[in-house]
């Protein structure tokens, strides 16, 4: 009589794999996170099918967990089976739920997108589950859509916490911003990558829109009733909090520079410099971030002018000439055709030239005159109609430097 049956072997393997799962889970999630369903131990069955996977399990059994952790967290997409990808998609998803680890969420997305590219596995599972209860076309649609479900889930999570700027929503937004990374991880093909990235972008934009809408509503109301600057500054800081929550999102930067320009112009025209300075203070980081984007990517030219205008305002109220020149240079660099930028930079250059001419002395005369001449020439090229230009030229001419006609 046979006391030990094949079925007992299978049962023992299952139990051993469940023990391995517990040990692996503790390595990934710590002691407190509730264990995934025992069927998650099926990932060891899938791992065992490759030599590397079997070796990793063997070494883990001897207490060396690193190769197993590597096999689970950095699976080689070339050797990845769809069933293993399915287990890993769910396991990393559970890990992200339990620990909030963004990397785990990205791994989970990567595995789902691997399955989206592979196509057949989920369809087979879908057919086996649905049997005759759903039309074939619907099963195809549902299984093709399933790998993108987690992206929609993140979008819903981001949207749900957008108005209160919750940490959970911020984490979801960050992951949505890293979907391309997940595509690379899962070796997603071009079509899947395009779809995933577009969907993540839409979901992100919807959540950021919702967060901005709250601030925009308050700003609109405050501007309409001509609220004091202090109140507007507080609202701008609120908008900056949205920008930080949205992981320095470009959409918020564009909103800020466009929304605040008219308010700044009002104060600028009335020469309320302290107010201009106070309003600019919260905007410095988002403006700088937008400026860097424009410098990196010429396709963002449409935002160059409003961004440059921020630097023009800044140049007008900066405390020192050096800082004024730095901001004006930035405005012109961002938008070389910006009229106000050219005007203020030309004016500041002439101002510097005049100041230099005021301090010229016999022992530094040539050097000072060279610098002043260069400033005046550049000012003329930037803004030939500048009112102070003829005076500057006359002063240079008096020192022996003739600009017009050589």
């Amino acid at each position, binding site marked *: 009589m046979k006391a030990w049956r094949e079925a007992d072997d299978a049962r023992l393997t299952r139990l051993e794999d469940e023990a391995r799962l517990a040990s692996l889970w503790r390595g990934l999630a710590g002691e407190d996170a509730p264990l995934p369903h025992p069927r998650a131990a099926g990932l060891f069955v899938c791992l065992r099918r490759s030599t590397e996977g079997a070796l990793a399990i063997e070494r883990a059994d001897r207490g060396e967990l690193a190769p197993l952790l590597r096999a689970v967290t950095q699976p080689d997409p070339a050797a990845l089976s769809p069933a293993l990808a399915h287990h890993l998609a*769910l396991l990393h998803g*559970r890990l992200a739920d339990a620990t909030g680890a963004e990397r785990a969420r990205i791994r989970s997305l990567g595995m789902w997108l691997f399955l989206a590219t592979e196509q057949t596995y989920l369809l087979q599972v879908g057919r086996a589950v649905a049997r005759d209860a759903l039309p074939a076309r619907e099963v195809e649609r549902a299984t093709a859509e399933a790998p993108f*479900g987690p992206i929609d889930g993140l979008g819903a999570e981001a949207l749900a916490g957008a108005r209160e700027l919750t940490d959970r929503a911020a984490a979801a937004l960050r992951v949505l911003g890293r979907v391309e990374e997940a595509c690379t991880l899962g070796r997603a093909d071009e079509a899947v990558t395009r779809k995933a990235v577009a969907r993540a972008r839409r979901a992100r934009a919807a959540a950021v829109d919702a967060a901005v809408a709250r601030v925009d509503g308050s700003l609109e109301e405050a501007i309409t009733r001509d609220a004091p600057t202090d109140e507007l500054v507080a609202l701008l800081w609120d908008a900056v909090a949205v920008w930080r929550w949205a992981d320095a999102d470009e959409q918020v930067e564009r909103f800020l520079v466009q929304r605040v320009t008219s308010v700044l112009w009002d104060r600028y025209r009335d020469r309320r410099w302290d107010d201009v300075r106070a309003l600019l203070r919260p905007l410095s980081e988002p403006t700088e971030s937008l400026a860097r984007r424009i410098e990196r990517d010429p396709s963002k030219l449409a935002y160059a002018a409003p961004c440059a205008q921020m630097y023009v305002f800044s140049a007008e109220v900066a405390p020192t000439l050096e800082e004024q020149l730095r901001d004006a240079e930035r405005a012109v660099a961002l938008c070389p055709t910006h009229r106000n930028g050219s005007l203020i930079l030309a004016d500041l250059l002439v101002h510097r030239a005049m100041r230099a001419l005021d301090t010229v002395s016999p022992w530094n005369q040539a050097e000072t005159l060279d610098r002043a001449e260069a400033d005046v020439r550049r000012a003329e090229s930037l803004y030939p109609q500048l009112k102070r230009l003829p005076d500057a030229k006359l002063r240079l001419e008096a020192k022996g430097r003739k600009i017009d006609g050589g």
Partner: protein
Amino acid sequence: MADNPFERWDLDPMQGPQAITERLRELAEDAPDEETRATIRAAWEALTMHPRDRLRAALEAHPDSHGAAGAPPPPPPAPRRAHRALELSDLVLRPSLVRALGLEREARAPIPDVAPADDPWLR
């Protein structure tokens, strides 16, 4: 995923509505309170009456790779009989059967000391 009904109620995603119903009925019968029974009922409705929900939940549940790995699958759970205490007459070999099978010698031998699951008489 934590509330996936296949995982919460330990259901095999590959099983059809009939098996799901059977398992959830058992769970509902053993449920400690009305609230749990209502939760089980909601899961049953979602999984059996809405195939789209069943499909979605199945894709979000770990597959049973131990059963489908080429390794011998674990034996199916023994069908549950109605709860009735075993009686001696259930264990006794009926003389008519012993005679018909020519097992008189084996019937007289001492009962082997093996687990019921491995007892050839009980297979």
